[in-house]
């Protein structure tokens, strides 16, 4: 199990991530009364990006991009092999730093400001992410994901506040409107494409694949809230994950883009209100 699961993640996560991305584009298009691209379009895009001539602004960018990718994949593998969840989250933040570096090594002001905003986003997400780990620990007495999935009942029953806080920052993590500050799926924002403005060809393809890995990883954390020792909970978790993704698409399509200051205010407020209150109750009840 400890070896099989990471390998499965390594192979299947980009597939799942790409398919989800394709569905995202299709559903968004339907919401806007467009036809939309085929479900497999993200794969075609990545394939085409790899086929393009390699032009980089600075050579170090490729190295930084690959490091970012390897770190994210490694984090995912760790998560699926059932090790310390806290460790996974810290690795994830470290990976984010490499994305920041890959953005600021270029001279482009868009990329530079995008990089700064990427750090800002990390700051917005971090409290909720760490509190989630803490919530699991208080509930189950362990940071190990392998222990958490063997729980007697779903964690969401005891941690609804944490779940809400995590869903909120998921929008930031998935770089979706209203919180697509550092980069956006549509280049129609003031930073063009933010951190990815200066990425092209295979580097952009790497970024895209990494994003799929990251999305699958974040959705796996959502699944962790549902999973228990009952095998049927797996089906339930998949459904909840799909519902979560749909919710993200819905929010993306029904809101304007927020400013970064507002993002900080809102994300911390929600984290403190939802996860904080839940935490206090959890401690008092025990």
């Amino acid at each position, binding site marked *: 199990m400890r070896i099989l699961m990471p390998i499965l993640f390594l192979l299947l996560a980009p597939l799942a991530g790409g398919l989800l991305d394709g569905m995202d584009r299709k559903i*968004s298009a339907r919401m806007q009364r467009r036809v939309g691209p085929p479900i497999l379009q993200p794969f075609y895009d990545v394939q085409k990006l790899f086929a393009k001539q390699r032009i980089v602004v600075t050579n170090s960018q490729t190295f930084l991009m690959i490091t970012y990718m390897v770190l994210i994949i490694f984090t995912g593998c760790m998560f699926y092999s059932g090790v310390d969840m806290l460790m996974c989250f810290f690795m994830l933040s470290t990976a984010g730093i490499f994305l920041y570096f890959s953005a600021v090594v270029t001279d482009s*002001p868009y990329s530079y400001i995008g990089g700064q905003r990427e750090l800002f986003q990390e700051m917005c997400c971090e409290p909720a992410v760490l509190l989630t780990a803490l919530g699991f620990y208080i509930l189950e007495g362990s940071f190990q994901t392998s222990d958490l999935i063997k729980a007697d009942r779903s964690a969401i029953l005891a941690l609804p506040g944490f779940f809400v806080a995590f869903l909120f920052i998921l929008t930031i993590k998935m770089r979706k409107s*209203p919180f697509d500050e550092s980069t956006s799926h549509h280049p*129609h*924002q003031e930073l063009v494409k933010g951190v990815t403005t200066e990425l092209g060809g295979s580097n952009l393809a790497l970024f895209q694949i990494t994003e799929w890995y990251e999305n699958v990883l974040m959705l796996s954390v959502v699944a962790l809230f549902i999973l228990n020792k009952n095998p049927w909970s797996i089906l339930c978790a998949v459904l909840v994950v799909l519902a979560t993704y749909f919710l993200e698409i819905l929010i993306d399509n029904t809101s304007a883009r927020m400013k970064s200051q507002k993002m900080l205010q809102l994300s911390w407020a929600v984290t403190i209100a939802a996860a904080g209150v839940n935490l206090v109750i959890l401690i008092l009840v025990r």
Partner: protein
Amino acid sequence: MDVKAKKRSVVPFGPQHPVLPEPIHLDLVLEDEKVVDVIPSIGFIHRGLEELVNRRDFNQYVYIAERTCGICSFGHGLGYVEAVEKLMNVEVPVRAKYLRTIWGEMGRIHSHLLWAGLMADAFGFENLFYQCWRLREKNLDLVEMTTGGRLIYSVNKVGGVLKDITPDMQKVILNNLSEIEVELKDIYKTFTTDYSVLERTRGVGVLTKEQVHDLGACGPYARASGVERDIRQLGYEAYGDLDFEPVVSTDGDNFARCDVRLREVFQSIDLIRQAIAKMPAETDLSVPVKGNPDGEALVRIEQPRGEAVYYVEGNGTKFLNRFRLRTPTFANIPAMCETMKGCNYADIPLLVVTIDPCISCTER
């Protein structure tokens, strides 16, 4: 703290930037994400259309005047023919005046809905953007049915209009307008009540009435700051017979500009209804024009974007000596730059879009 000690960076914004509908270049001086100074420059698409007036017959030039801009094309044609008619003392048939009014208002609906879409796109609300442009399509259908063109109407000529709006067409127009009105109410609600939209528009880019006056801004942009000025009140064409008040808001921020423009669409729908009801049944749509223009005339009309000034100078030949067109965007750029100082970098696209920039007609 010493100002110079702060780290400043210059971000080039435009002329080609995905959020910009038109090529304008701004050099933004940033302190972190705060804009401290802005240096605008235009001039990427100057075509020298004004000078063509020396080489084209004054009747032919109507079509060039219309092609100054794709969105307010009818207005430019109208302003030019009005100026020439004033120069030559031509009195246009009343029905032609009403027809011009109807088309002018259709142009306004088109322009404002297009703008609403661009605005939604600028604050990243894709669904709203699609909704606005889908609605605009209905209006374009009306234009196509009545004039044969979608953007360039080409129905004006010196002395009248070339096409008529038949009773059958009038029915379709009224029907379509009702549909537009219903859907527009939803859009208006989203623009004025949605939390995330208000977050981006309320209190952003405030201009006072005094500033608007000093910087010479005009149109909905000025009306959003409480300036009760609508050139249509001069009563040119059939506007004198129609009942309307300028749409004014007092906040002077992005929200007020959205509000004013969208309410103007409702007003335009109302004006078209009034005009159709009051339009006299005449058969003559134009009067013959004899002779060549001499002397000079200056005409102001209210374009969708604001006050436009048309100045013509004839010299007794069939070629005019000078045609001058001052577009509303030209007058609004100084005010736009003023709103940008001290704002957040993320507000820049919105502040550019709220003047409804039309750089290609600004540079002509």
